[in-house]
């Protein structure tokens, strides 16, 4: 084979190899790792520690239960009256979230907290936090098949979602997440922008 075509073929093969590498990296997002420009697994995993602490606090976890009944209170007991998730996460029949949970918090100790869009994750995308290890939760959060079909951009924006922020305005008688919303948002962004690495356990 003439030398020139050999070079061409080699060039083509490496181009294909490069392309598949790029594709593989993109596909890796669905497996739980984002390869962004500034990869820093140590920084990323360190930031996730704070993210995990918040997500596993009762204010977040209570509405991300392993079963189909939300949890309640600082001890995360099953919600009184055992309301059910329902298909859309908004309850069933007479037991819809919005029948008691209003658009805003109600005054008084342990009164139903409120938000216009109060709900659990839907039945086809339960996004369970309860019982998850840091590694399991990190992988679940970056995988669009388990994170509510969120892209990287939507995931970043999710720190400012209304229901997420409601965790820091829980109403009387409920403790706040362990760090401020600003600190959480910073950790969330740091975790994602440094590659959204999952901890080893």
């Amino acid at each position, binding site marked *: 084979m003439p030398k020139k075509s050999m070079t061409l073929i080699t060039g083509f093969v490496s181009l294909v190899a490069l392309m598949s590498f790029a594709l593989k990296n993109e596909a890796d997002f669905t497996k739980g790792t984002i390869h962004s420009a500034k990869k820093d697994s140590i920084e990323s995993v360190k930031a996730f520690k704070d993210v995990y602490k918040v997500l596993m606090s009762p204010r977040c976890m209570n509405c991300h239960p392993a079963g189909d009944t939300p949890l309640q209170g600082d001890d995360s007991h099953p919600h*009184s*009256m*055992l*309301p*059910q998730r329902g298909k859309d996460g908004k309850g*069933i*029949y*007479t*037991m*819809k979230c*919005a*029948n*008691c949970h*209003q*658009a805003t918090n*109600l005054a*008084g100790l*342990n*009164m*139903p907290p409120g938000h216009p869009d109060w709900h659990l994750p839907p039945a086809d995308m339960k996004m369970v936090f309860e019982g998850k290890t840091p590694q399991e939760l990190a992988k679940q959060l970056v995988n669009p098949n388990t994170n509510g079909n969120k892209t990287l951009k939507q995931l970043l924006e999710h720190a400012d979602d209304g229901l997420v922020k409601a965790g820091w305005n829980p109403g009387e008688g409920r403790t706040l997440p362990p760090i401020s919303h600003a600190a959480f948002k910073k950790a969330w962004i740091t975790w994602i922008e440094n590659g959204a690495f999952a901890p080893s356990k």
Partner: protein
Amino acid sequence: MISLTINNKPYQLDIDPNTPLLWVLRDHLDLVGTKFGCGLAQCGACTVHLNGEAIRSCVTKVSRAEGQKVVTIEGLSDTGEHPVQKAWLELDVAQCGYCQTGQIMSAAVLLNQNKNPTDKDIDAAMSGNICRCGTYLRIREAIHLAAEIQQKNG
């Protein structure tokens, strides 16, 4: 001024928009069939229909009901012949009766959304309506009977 439609009747009320709907019904409109049990969304005695959903009027500000359709026990049926009411009478469900308005209003929503509920559906739907007298088993039976009556009525 707040405009309300309750049991298909229009009302204009000069009232604080933060007033709980239950207070408006009982104290301002004299619709006292709806009961106060806890005031904390914990018992279901105050259940009324807001656009067909079984909301708890003790924790619902009247402003949420503005321009919406509210039905109370007084308006469930003009003649008292709603299938749930018929079944309740037939099986003598009530004991002291205090919780029964809420039970009936909840049962009516369940049967509207599920024409033939199983025991499991009934338990899941009625678990937020508490009865101090423990009439739960009769309630369950009466909901099955009401479903039959509803089906016969077509």
